C-alpha cells in the first residue's frame, strides 16, 4: 500500500512506475543500439589487440 507523506509524494507508485519506465525505455531502445555487433573470430594471426579495440 502506498504510504503518503505530507509532502504529497506516494512512494510505491513511484517505484513501480519508475521500474516499469526503466524496463520500457531500455527494451525499446535496445533495437537501436543492437545493430551490427558481430563478434570477431580468434585465430592467432588476427591483428594486435589494443587498449582501444572494440
Amino acid at each position, binding site marked *: 500500500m502506498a*504510504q*503518503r*507523506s*505530507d*509532502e*504529497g*509524494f506516494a*512512494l510505491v*507508485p*513511484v*517505484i513501480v*512506475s*519508475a*521500474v516499469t*519506465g*526503466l*524496463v520500457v*525505455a*531500455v527494451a*525499446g*531502445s*535496445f533495437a*537501436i*543500439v*543492437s545493430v551490427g*555487433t558481430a*563478434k*570477431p573470430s*580468434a585465430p*592467432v*594471426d*588476427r*591483428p*594486435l*589487440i*589494443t*587498449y*582501444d*579495440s*572494440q
Partner: protein
Amino acid sequence: MTDRRTVVGPGPGAVGALTGLVVALVALGPALARGYLLAYDLVGVPDQPLMARVLGTDGSVPRAVPNDLVVVLLSTVLPGDVVQKVLLLAVFVLGGWGVGRLMPTRLAGAVAAVTLTWNAYVAERLAIGHWGFLLGLAALPWAVGAGTAVRRGEPGAVPRLCLVLALTGLAGSTALVMVTLLVVVLLVGTGWRDRMRPLGWSLLTAFGAAAPWLVPALRQAGSLPTDPEGVTAFAARADTPLGLLPSLLTTGGIWNPAVWPAERGSTVVAVVTLLLVMTAVAAGAGPWRRTGGATATAVLAAGALGLVLAAAGAVPGLRDLLRSVVVHVPGGGLLRDGQKFAALAVLPLACCAGLAAQRARAHVTNGAWLLLVVPVAVLPSLAWGVHGRLDPATYPGSWRALRAEVERATDATPGAVAVFPFTYYRRYAWNHDHVVLDPLPRLLDADVVENDDLPLADRVVRGEDPRAARIRRALDDGADLAAALAAEDVRWVVEQRDQPDRTGQLARLSALPIVWSAGDLTLRRVPGPPVPPPDRQAPVGVVLGAVTLLAALGVVLLPRRWRRWYARAR
C-alpha cells in the same frame, strides 16, 4: 542542506539507496550472475594471491594499489567473482544513498540518485572497468555531507569527514584525489580561517590514505619515466557530434572510443541530453544555492574544477603544463586520463536534477516521477551489463591448473615468469571475445613480467617497467630471446597460443623445453643460473594507510561504543 521535517516514512537517503539498487539491477543485469567480469581494466581472478605487486613493494608503478589489496582481502571471505559484484553494487547503492541524503525530499533524492548513477560517465567507466573511479564518484556525496557538517561546526563532523577520506583511499588513487579536491574546495572559501584545523586533519588523513600508492610512487627509482605521449593519447575526446565541451558537460568524453555508448553518436540524443543538463542546472542551481548556501557554491565550483581538469589534456597550453607534471612529478601519471575528474561535475548535476525535479513537482504533481526515467531514456545502452559489455565468464580448467603448475615450478626453480605473446591486452573466446588486460599477472602467485606498453590503434604509450623494455628490445632486434629472458631473471614462460602473434614471438620460444601444457596454455622453462631473491621494499605505504584508516575508524566509532558501555555500566 536537508530538511526532513515534512517527510514521513523512509527519508530521501533511503529512497536514494533503493533507487541506486534498482538502477544497479538494471545497469548490471546479467553481469550480476556468477562468473568473472573481464573487460578492459576490469580483471577478476579466482583467489587472487597476496603478492608484492598488490602491496606496492615490487618496485612497479602502483596502478592498482590498494584496489587489488582490497580485492585480495575481500576474496578471503567471498569468492572473487562475488567480490566484483559487491564492489559494483556498492557504487550504485552508496552513490544513490549519499546523494539522496543531500536532498530535501524523496522525489529529489530519487532523481538525484538516478542522475548520479545513470550517466555517460558511469557507462564509459563501467565499460572500461574503472570500478575504483566509480567508487570515488559514489564517495563524493558522502564527503559533501560530512564537509557540510564541518562547515556548520557540528560535533564529531571532522572525524566523520576524515573517515570518508580514509575509506575512499581504499578505492585507489583517483577516487581519493577526487574526494580530497572536493573537500578542500568545501573547506576553503568564505570563513576558511575558522576551518584551518579541519582542513589540516583532512589533508593529513588524505596523505595517510594515499600512502599505499604515494610511497611506492616516490620510491620508484628503477622505473622508466612516464611517456608524455600518454597525455595526448588519454586526453578527453568528444564522444558526441557536438564537440568536446558538450561531451564533458553531458558527463561523457572518455578518451577511448571503444567504450563510447552508441547513442552518444546521435546528434539528436546529444542535443536532447545537453538541453536536459542545462535545464537541470538552470532550474536546480538557484534553489540549491538558496538552501545550501556556501556548500552548494563550493560543490558547483568543484564541478567546474573537475571539468577544467577533464579538458586539460585537450586544451593547448594546459596540455603542455599537464605534460610536464606527468613527466616530472612522481605519481603525475595519475593526471593523464583527465576526463575521470569529470565525476566532480556529475555530483552537482545530480543535485541540481533532484532539486529541479522537486521544483517541477509544484507544476506537475503526479507526473514528476517521469523525470526518473529521463536519464535512462537518453542513455539506454548502460542497461543490462552496459549492453552486454560486462558478461560473466568462467576460467577454463587449464587456467587453474596453470596456477598450480607455476607455483610448483617457481618453488623448485625460483625466477620470474614472462607471458607471451608479449602484449598487454587479450581477447579470449571463453570470455566472449571481450578485450581485457591479461589476467595472468593477477592469477599467478609469482613475479610476472608483462609488457606494460599500452598499444592503441594509432600509437603506443610506452610503459615504465625497465625489464619489459629490455625484453621488447630483444624482440625487436631479433636477439636471442632465451638469453634476454634469462638476463632478466625470467626462468619460466607462459605461452597463450590462442592470442594474436603476427610477429612470430611464440616460434622464437620453441627451443625452450616444455614442462606443462593444457588447453591453449604452455609452460616452458628458461635455462639460466640460480636467481637471487627479488629486492622487495618494506610495505611502508600500506601500513601507513592501514594506520590512517584504523585511526579514523577508531575516532568515529570508539567513543560511541564507550558511551554505550558507560550507559550500560550505570
